[in-house]
């Protein structure tokens, strides 16, 4: 199966006169049509930066220094800014964590949706309005005609996120990058948004990259997972394999850190220490200082090694099936 989006060996750095911080150091991943890829990591792991790099939303001093982002085989990174504008929002869309930041507070929903539509397609105001109403209806907003007249502050958090999703879906993009879209929402509203996004992507065959720090959220919706640590993907594979038999000690640690059912009151297994700052990364495996399995070989950097056709891991001593 050909992938819609293919990221190869992506390096993003913050280049400053006296200091260069390598924030992403060789991120490779791909998503197929209609597939949901969960991109999991803790703060500072580079998951958001990966989304921004793919969509070329980096601002100086951040820049992609190496690698390819292929959308249907076409390298997005080599496009001119004008071509990128045509692509962004039409073929790659993004949903952010805080819908209050993505929506313009001083414009009505109608104006924002119309602008988004007419940025890529020539159409009359009336036509844009019809399309906007249909899009709002699709994301389950009651009374969409009257909602078009609202300003973002008049909507609840869940409604705002629905509007943001409706805008992302306006042009039927090939890929949607969703950056922690439910983190700021309540549990019941999160459930609504999850089911909505899930259904829309399945029905339309949109590829989705769901960026989150919460393993439990992606466990429910993703087909495949990629786990990031300190600017690198450390493990990637089908969701069931990865969660049931994680190969990387960090993945194992993350899973054990989540309170599970039936272990009430017991101590959670914790990963000692914390993620190193990007300026003081160890030379070899960046997880080695926190890893209970670390050996002498971990002073060198392990490569991504394939375990089977769909799974690979960046570790010299991948955990065997079923071991704790």
């Amino acid at each position, binding site marked *: 199966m050909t992938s819609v989006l293919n990221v190869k060996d992506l390096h993003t750095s913050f280049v400053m006169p006296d200091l260069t911080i390598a924030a992403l150091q060789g991120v490779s991943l791909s998503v197929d049509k209609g597939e949901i890829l969960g991109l999991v990591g*803790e*703060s500072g792991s580079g998951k958001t930066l990966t989304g921004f790099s793919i969509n070329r939303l980096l601002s100086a001093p951040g820049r992609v220094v190496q690698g390819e982002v292929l959308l249907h085989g076409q390298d997005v990174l080599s496009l001119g800014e004008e071509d990128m504008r045509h692509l962004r929002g039409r073929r790659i869309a993004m949903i952010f964590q805080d819908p209050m930041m993505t929506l313009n507070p001083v414009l009505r929903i109608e104006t924002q949706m119309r602008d988004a539509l007419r940025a890529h397609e020539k159409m009359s105001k009336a036509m844009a309005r019809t399309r906007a109403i249909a899009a709002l209806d699709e994301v389950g907003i009651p009374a969409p005609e009257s909602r078009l007249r609202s300003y973002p502050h008049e909507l*609840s958090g*869940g*409604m705002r996120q629905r509007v943001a999703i409706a805008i992302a879906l306006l042009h039927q993009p090939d890929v949607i990058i969703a950056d922690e879209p439910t983190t700021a929402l*309540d*549990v*019941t*509203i*999160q*459930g*609504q948004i*999850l*089911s909505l996004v*899930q259904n829309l992507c399945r029905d339309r065959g949109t590829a989705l990259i769901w960026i989150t*720090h*919460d*393993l*439990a*959220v992606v*466990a*429910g*919706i993703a*087909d495949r997972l990629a786990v990031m640590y300190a600017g690198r993907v450390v493990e990637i594979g089908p*969701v*069931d394999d990865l*969660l049931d038999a994680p190969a990387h000690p960090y993945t194992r*640690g*993350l*899973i*054990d*850190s*989540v*309170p*599970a*059912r039936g*272990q*009430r*009151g017991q*101590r*959670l*297994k*914790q*990963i000692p220490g*914390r*993620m190193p700052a990007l300026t003081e990364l160890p030379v070899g495996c960046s997880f080695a200082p926190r890893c209970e399995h670390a050996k002498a070989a971990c002073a060198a950097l392990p490569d991504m090694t394939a375990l089977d056709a769909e799974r690979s891991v960046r570790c010299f001593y991948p955990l065997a099936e079923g071991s704790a």
Partner: protein
Amino acid sequence: MTSDAILSVRNVTKRFGGRGDFIARGLSRIGLAEPNAVVHAVEDVSFDLRKGEVLGVVGESGCGKSTLGRMVAGLLDPSEGEIVAQASGATTGALPMQMIFQDPFSSLNPRKRVSELIGEAPRVHGIVPPDALDAYVADMMDRCGVDGNYRDRFAHQFSGGQRQRIGIARALAVRPEILVCDEAVSALDVSIQAQIVNLFMDLRDELGLTYIFISHDLGVVEHISDRILVMYLGRIVESGPAEQIFADPQHPYTRALIEGVPRLERRRTVYAPIKGDIPSPIDPPKGCHFHPRCPLAQPQCKVERPALRDIAGGRQAACHLIERPAKKEISIG
């Protein structure tokens, strides 16, 4: 108050707004302005807290769980009702209740050194003599997992997880018996969150602390709590032992809440979420607050407020549709 309760909350209500300032009142009296809206943040809440127990308070934003926590911690005064704490009085000057906040960035004064952040309250309240203060602060930090040698640093020189530990050390420094943790682990990364949850459980064993653990994260609450209060728009809708609430939720809202929790073992779940948003607390629905979103709502629910009453298994629920203890099984699909 029952004999083993160290805190008793009786019919507590908190209202915000209403009166307005002099001009607003004048305008509304001569009919030029609407009277100020009144928000019932917490309405008629009662519970007892037993020594050494962890009470989890769950609910969505706007349900009044934080307001309740702040009233218990003494940061807000209840509009009605009373909160009675029974401190053992073992340490002179000890403050029986302390609060731990969500954001370890804004809850620590950036201009004070850690030694001062932690040491100020015990010094002022005379819990430790001045010459022993330094060692006391270092001991508190070590106990919470921060190196006591770093006590002359400022808060910004620590990571988020360490800062949360400093917040905990600060609360523990006045020898409290009850800790109110308001979303104390929500802002932390998963691996750090596990460290802090473990710290809370260790401290409970070592110091016999009692916790009120407020969170929207049901996974963490289930893990740590003995008893649960479920709140919706200022009222308790269900309460009882944690195990039972999670295994067999009775109130439709509790069910929705628990079913909505993403879990690692739920793969490719088709979420069947509950409809609608949380209504505004300024103008809550009549009758049962939950009826507009409830899949089982009956005409009765729209007019009559269900009382919180005892159901089977030492639990309480506020729902017209839940049978009394005799007939336990109900089918809610």
